[in-house]
C-alpha cells in the first residue's frame, strides 16, 4: 500500500477504543460529551468502536492501577498496527494525585508508549478534540516538549 495514501486515509479516519484504567469517570463523561451532536467528531472521521480489533487509537483514562496493568497491555496488543495511544486527563498524563501511590503505575507513559497527553481534571471536550487533532497533525503544535535541567 502506498504509504502517503495510507497516511492520508489514517488521518481522516480514526476509530477510537476507550479504555478506563482506573479513572474516576470524570474524564469518561467528558469523552462521551465529545461524541454528542454539539461537538460531533464524526465530521473528522472519528468514531468510537466497541472492539480493540477495529480500533486505531486507544483513549486511556486513569492512572493505570496495578490490577488493570496486565489487561491494558493485552488490550494494546489486540489493537492492529499502526496505532496511537492517547492519555486523557491528569491521572493518565502523570498519575494525578496518585502519582506516588503504591497501587497505581503513575500514568499511562509508564506502561504504554503514549503519543499524546491531554491534561486536565477533567479536560474540556474542546481540549480532547484539539489533542486528537494535534496527534493526527491536523493542527500545528503550540508548545515544545522541554526537559528541566538543574543548574
Amino acid at each position, binding site marked *: *500500500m502506498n504509504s502517503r*495514501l*495510507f497516511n*492520508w*486515509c*489514517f488521518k*481522516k*479516519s480514526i476509530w477510537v477504543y476507550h479504555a478506563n484504567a482506573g479513572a474516576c469517570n470524570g474524564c469518561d463523561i467528558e469523552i462521551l460529551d465529545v461524541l454528542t*451532536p454539539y461537538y*460531533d467528531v*464524526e*465530521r473528522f*472521521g472519528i468514531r468510537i*468502536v*466497541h*472492539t480493540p*480489533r*477495529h480500533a*486505531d487509537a486507544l483513549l486511556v483514562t486513569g492512572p493505570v492501577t496495578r490490577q488493570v496493568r496486565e489487561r491494558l497491555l493485552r488490550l494494546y496488543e*489486540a489493537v*492492529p*498496527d*499502526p496505532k496511537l495511544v492517547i492519555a486523557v486527563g491528569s491521572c493518565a498524563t502523570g498519575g494525578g494525585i496518585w502519582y506516588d501511590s503504591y497501587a497505581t503505575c503513575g500514568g499511562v507513559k509508564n506502561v504504554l508508549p503514549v503519543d499524546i497527553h491531554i491534561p486536565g481534571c477533567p479536560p474540556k471536550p474542546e481540549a480532547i478534540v484539539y489533542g486528537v487533532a494535534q496527534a493526527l497533525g491536523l493542527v500545528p503544535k503550540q508548545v515544545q516538549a522541554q526537559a528541566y535541567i538543574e543548574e
Partner: protein
Amino acid sequence: MNLQQISLDLFYTLIFPGLLFTAVVGLLLTWVDRKVTAVVQSRIGPPWYQPFADIGKLMGKKMVVPSGSSVGFLAAPLISIAGATLASVIVLRALINPQAGFVGDVIVLLYLTMLPALALIIGGGSSRSPFGAIGASREMSMVLAYEVGFLLTIFAVVIKTHSIQLSGIIAYQAEHGALALTVSGFLALCIALFCLQAKLGFLPFDISEADTELIGGPLAEYSGSGLALFKISRAMMFLQLPVFAVLLFMGANQLTLLSMAGFLLKLLAVLVLIIVIKITHARLRLDQMLRLFWGRLAIVGLIAVVFALVGW
C-alpha cells in the same frame, strides 16, 4: 467460449456493473446514509470521502488472525465479496440490458444474496471468540427467518408474471404496469422492504452485530483488510438490493431520460425509506424478530401468494 467472450465477462464482473462500479457507488451510498443520519440528529456529519478513507485505512492496517482460528476465518470475507459481486452483476446488467439475463436468474439471485450472511456465519463461527459465536448463531436464526419472507415475495412475483427470469418480469411490467400497483404485488413489496432491512443488517434488525451488546458479533475479531472486505460487500448490497426491489416491483424502464430519472427517484425513495426506518427504530430482540417474520409477515406473504394465484 472464445477469448473475447471471456475478457468481456471479466470486464462485466470486475469493472463495470460488477466489483469496482458497485463498490464505489455503494460506498457513496453509505456516505449518504451517514450524512442523513447526521442531519436527522442535527449534526454536520462526515465529508463525502469518509467511506473511502475508512476503507483505505483498513486496507493498510495489519490483519490480526486469532490463534487457533480455522481457514473459514480467512475465507469468509472472500465468500462475502464474491457473493455480493455476482449478485450485483446479475441485477445491474438486468437493469442496463434486460436481454443479458438467463432463465432462472431470479432463483440464482436468491442464493447469491444469501452468501454475505453465510460468510458472516462462517467467519463468526471460526473466529474463536464468544462474541463471534453468539453473533453467528443469531445471524443463522435471522437468515432462517427473513428468507421465508423473501422467498414468499419472490413466489408471489413469479406466480404473477409466469417468469423466473428478470427480463420476463420486466417485460410483464412493461405490458401490464408496475407490480406494486396490484394487490399481491403491493403486499409482496411491503414484505420485501422488511426483508431488505434485515438482509442489510440495519436497525431494527442488526441483532447479530449489536454493537453495544455483542461488540460487532461476527465482525468482532476482524481487523484490517478482512473487515474492509466485509464493509465493501455490505456497501455493494446496499446498492444492489434496493435496485433489485425496484426492478421486481416498480415497473419497467426505457432508455429515455425521463424513465431513467424516474428509476433514480424510485431508488432514492426506497433508500430514504430504509435509512429513515434505520434511524428511528431501536433494536428488536431476537425472539421478537423471529415472531415478526415467521408470524405476521409469513401470513401476509401467504396472502400475497394466494392473491397472485387468483390473479389480483
